[in-house]
């Protein structure tokens, strides 16, 4: 087991190193930040000084190593646009996104799993067909379109909920949260639903597929023969057996939700990470882009590492056999 952990850890570190090079070089290819930083009519000496201050005059590999050395000590440079340390900027936007992502994934799981189990348990019932139709819609509708429909319905036509922004926030543990005030909560509802719909569709499908397959197995036949009630079978056998893939997907989705939030945050003007990255792509704010992408990469690599280790702990075949 220890060998497996070490091997996977080294793999994760290698992946991060490769990713950092790709991201750094890739982002370097986008536009010329000097045009953004310095007005074209600026005198030559100011130009040169600004270029030197940001280290843009050095060779690319040297810039990369300076970047890595600083990044390892938590310094990702300063944003060209916001003129503040990038890490601080990202951390200040993180709670908003985290709040939104958690609300969305939790909601999707708590609603999606029971619906999916039902759809798999009675696959030919009318209700199951309705549930599956909803899930196909949830899968098919692009996030931005759902967001527009939500705004059009609940903000413009009915006027029940606000169309954008974060609303009133409360400071807890030094961080601003929306879900603690009524006003903030009302701002959270629409973007959370928007972000949750895709996950809801996925949870329904996962739970349904798992339930359908398990219901056909001998386990269920024997449980029925033993006289267990259907509710007990669903709770103790089906839910338990389908929970492993669901927990995995829950973890993975929490990560990808941070990325999907890009669209939702843009539509609802939610001041989170997604809005930050879109703004920095349009403004060519290179340090923010590099730092964001590397942190996201680190997040995904960490999640995958944890998932791999958890799986190995659960399934001895994985750690003994050859690693694919």
């Amino acid at each position, binding site marked *: 087991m220890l060998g497996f952990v070490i091997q996977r850890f080294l793999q994760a570190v290698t992946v991060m190193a490769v990713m950092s090079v790709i991201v750094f070089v890739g982002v370097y290819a*986008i536009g010329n930040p000097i045009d953004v930083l310095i007005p074209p009519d600026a005198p030559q000496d100011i130009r040169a000084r600004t270029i030197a201050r940001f280290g843009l005059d050095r060779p690319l590999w040297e810039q990369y190593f300076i970047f890595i050395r600083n990044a390892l000590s938590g310094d990702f440079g300063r944003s060209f646009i916001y003129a503040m340390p990038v890490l601080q900027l990202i951390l200040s936007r993180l709670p908003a996104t985290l709040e939104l992502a958690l609300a969305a994934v939790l909601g999707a799981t708590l609603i999606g799993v029971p619906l999916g189990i039902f759809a798999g348990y009675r696959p030919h019932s009318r209700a199951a067909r309705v549930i599956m139709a909803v899930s196909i*819609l949830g899968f098919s509708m692009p996030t*931005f379109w759902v967001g*527009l429909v939500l705004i*059009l319905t609940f903000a413009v036509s009915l006027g029940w909920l606000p169309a954008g922004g974060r609303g009133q926030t409360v400071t807890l543990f030094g961080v601003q949260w929306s879900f603690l005030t009524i006003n903030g909560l009302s701002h959270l509802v629409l973007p959370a639903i928007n972000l949750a719909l895709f996950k809801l569709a996925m949870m329904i499908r996962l739970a349904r597929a798992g339930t359908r397959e398990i219901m056909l197995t001998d386990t269920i036949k024997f449980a029925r023969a033993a006289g267990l009630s259907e509710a007990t079978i669903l709770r103790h056998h089906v839910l338990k057996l389908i929970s492993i893939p669901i927990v995995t997907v829950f973890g993975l989705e929490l990560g990808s939700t941070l990325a999907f939030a890009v*669209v939702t945050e843009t539509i609802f003007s939610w001041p989170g990470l997604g809005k930050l*990255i879109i703004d920095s792509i349009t403004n060519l704010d290179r340090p923010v882009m590099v730092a964001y992408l590397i942190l996201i990469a680190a997040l995904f690599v960490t*999640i995958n590492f944890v998932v791999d280790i958890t799986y190995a702990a659960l399934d001895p075949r994985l750690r003994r056999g050859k690693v694919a």
Partner: protein
Amino acid sequence: MSAAASPIANFWAEFRESPVALAALVVVLLIIVVAVLAPLIAPQDPYDLSRLQLRDARRPPGFVGSGGYVHLLGTDAQGRDLFSAILYGLRISIQMGLMAGAIALCIGATLGITAAFVGGRIEGLLMRIVDLQLCFPAILLALVLVAMLGQGKAQLIAALVAAQYAYFARTAYGAASAERRKDYIEAAMATPLSSRRIVFRHLLPNCMPPLIVVATVQVANAIALEATLSFLGLGLPVTEPSLGMLIANGFQYMMSGRYWISVYPGIALIVLIVAINLVGDQIRDQLNPRLKR
């Protein structure tokens, strides 16, 4: 009954039993026909800027504009006839989806089958790269790539392909490595047949069913992804609005009640994507041996 035709005939017979899937297939084919014939059907060429009149702008559905014909679905902020713009937009969407899907299929299937067939270090390396890429959401990859490559059709297709080929590679690899261990491939390997022939005549055809399922889903995803990128302003040039851009342009007028600029292109987009997904769903259910008792 000929043995060669029967699997496809059986497949079609089973497909026809689902009215929803059949209806979806008809809708998809209908949209494709309408999109291909768009220049003949549309009352206006929405990309010809010289023909657009500003006094026709933002008119509701049913308005008779300076062109003398009825704007069935209203006009957008530049005075474009929305019905025409949607037809041309569908054309772009389908074109993008099919091209990105086909290229991603070729690249992905080549990588996946090569990895499974060759094995060894190449297998490990290729599949590691693919797995690594699968951890990243397609939307984020496409976003960064479009930002790096710039705007334009070729760049957009490149971004879509880069974001999607990994799904094909994974699927092809899974199918091919399962087939690779079966006796018929081992038997073929023992004969003096060239590896090329074994791959193309024996391995590839047996990997096709799962690839077809992924292809349907991925074409729908590519269309949605293209629309999303265009909506975020990172897609195609403004002069040739795709459905996503039409929706984005209408967004600002939505608050003032001019819903049609965003809503009709959106409905067209959704109908297309949902129909493709319904067809794909049916195909997948039919090909899943575990659902057959």
